[in-house]
């Protein structure tokens, strides 16, 4: 054997961790958490192993859609500072491999979720993958400033899938969990866009900050935060919530609205002066906001012996 071409590292000679990074593990952790809450608060019972498999397949499906997104967006990921270290722009994984992994894991996760649980849960997972990879990544992201508003639906489906895994149906509670994430996504991402401004500008992604200006973005953050509050508090009146959730939701939404008002009252000069301190704080709090809402739903049944369970 004198062939030396296989000796040198080449693009595509990736380690396992590079392939794992294609699945967007941080997004996946949020998906696992919200799907798990949807599953645990749903009425009915399910065998623990089936529940484990259900959440695992939802996570794999979410990862698959992440890989498809990275395959499609490799060109703009090379431009944006935030995404330059992703496996494809970093030259660790070829875009062909990313596509193959995305498609294979999509089919795998949907079929196994169907076999393990039911057709509705599998159908919702398939639609979620399609929505994120095709509707959001291919159609909306580069064509409309409403990209993350509509695309946010993809991230909002996991608790509904978790609910469907147990019940085989979708009900008001599941729709409200969907609505919380759906309404939360725009202010969360627009706050990020305000302080990561050059990234989206350079890549030509029509974020609201680029197309309609930063004043309009601040207005929109406030509007969506105000619309989010009744949805989040409204969930507190359903069967899966209780007084603890309601109290937490009221406090979190009051604080979130306060942050949105502060962002709305500021102009660019003020923001540049303190390096977007308020916007960054709002973005960080938005993560805590979502975690605590779903966390409160999770602990509600556990508080029943103390008189603070569901209604």
């Amino acid at each position, binding site marked *: 054997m004198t062939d030396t071409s*296989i*000796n040198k*590292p080449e693009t595509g*000679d*990736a*380690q*396992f961790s590079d392939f794992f990074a294609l699945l967007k593990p941080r997004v996946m952790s949020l998906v696992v958490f919200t799907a798990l809450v949807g599953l645990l608060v749903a009425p009915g019972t399910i*065998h623990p*192993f*089936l529940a484990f*498999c259900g959440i*695992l397949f939802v996570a794999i499906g979410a990862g698959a859609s992440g890989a498809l997104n990275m395959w499609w967006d490799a060109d703009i990921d090379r431009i944006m500072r935030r995404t330059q270290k992703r496996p494809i722009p970093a030259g660790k994984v070829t875009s062909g491999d990313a596509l193959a992994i995305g498609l294979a894991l999509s089919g795998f996760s949907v079929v*196994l979720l169907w*076999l*393990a649980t039911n057709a509705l849960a599998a159908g919702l997972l398939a639609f979620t993958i399609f929505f994120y990879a095709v509707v959001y990544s291919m159609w909306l992201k580069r064509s409309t400033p409403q990209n993350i508003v509509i695309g946010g639906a993809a991230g909002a489906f996991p608790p509904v899938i978790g609910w469907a895994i147990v019940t085989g149906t979708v009900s008001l509670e599941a729709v409200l969990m969907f609505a919380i994430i759906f309404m939360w996504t725009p202010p969360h991402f627009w706050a990020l866009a305000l302080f990561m401004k050059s990234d989206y500008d350079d890549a030509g992604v029509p974020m609201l900050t680029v197309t309609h200006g930063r004043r309009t973005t601040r207005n929109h953050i406030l509007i969506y935060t105000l619309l989010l509050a009744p949805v989040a508090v409204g969930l507190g009146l359903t069967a899966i919530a209780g007084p603890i959730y309601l109290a937490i939701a009221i406090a979190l939404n009051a604080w979130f609205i306060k942050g949105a008002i502060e962002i709305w009252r500021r102009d660019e000069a003020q923001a540049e002066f303190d390096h977007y301190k308020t916007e960054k704080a709002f973005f960080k709090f938005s993560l805590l906001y979502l975690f605590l809402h779903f966390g409160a739903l999770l602990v509600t049944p556990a508080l029943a012996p103390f008189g603070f369970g569901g209604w």
Partner: protein
Amino acid sequence: MAFSKDHELHERRFGRNLSLAVVLIGLVGIVFGLTVVKVTTGQPLEGFDHVARPHMIPEEGN
């Protein structure tokens, strides 16, 4: 007789192959576990002997 030293390519890909092996073994375990759970928690298998028991036959009018 000593084995020849592994090619550098194999050394470079060892971690990746090992991880893939773990994933595949995990997949086998999951499919096996799913099978066990489905078989043990499902409805009793009936009709396998081609004998129709009374409760399996739909009542008239239904």
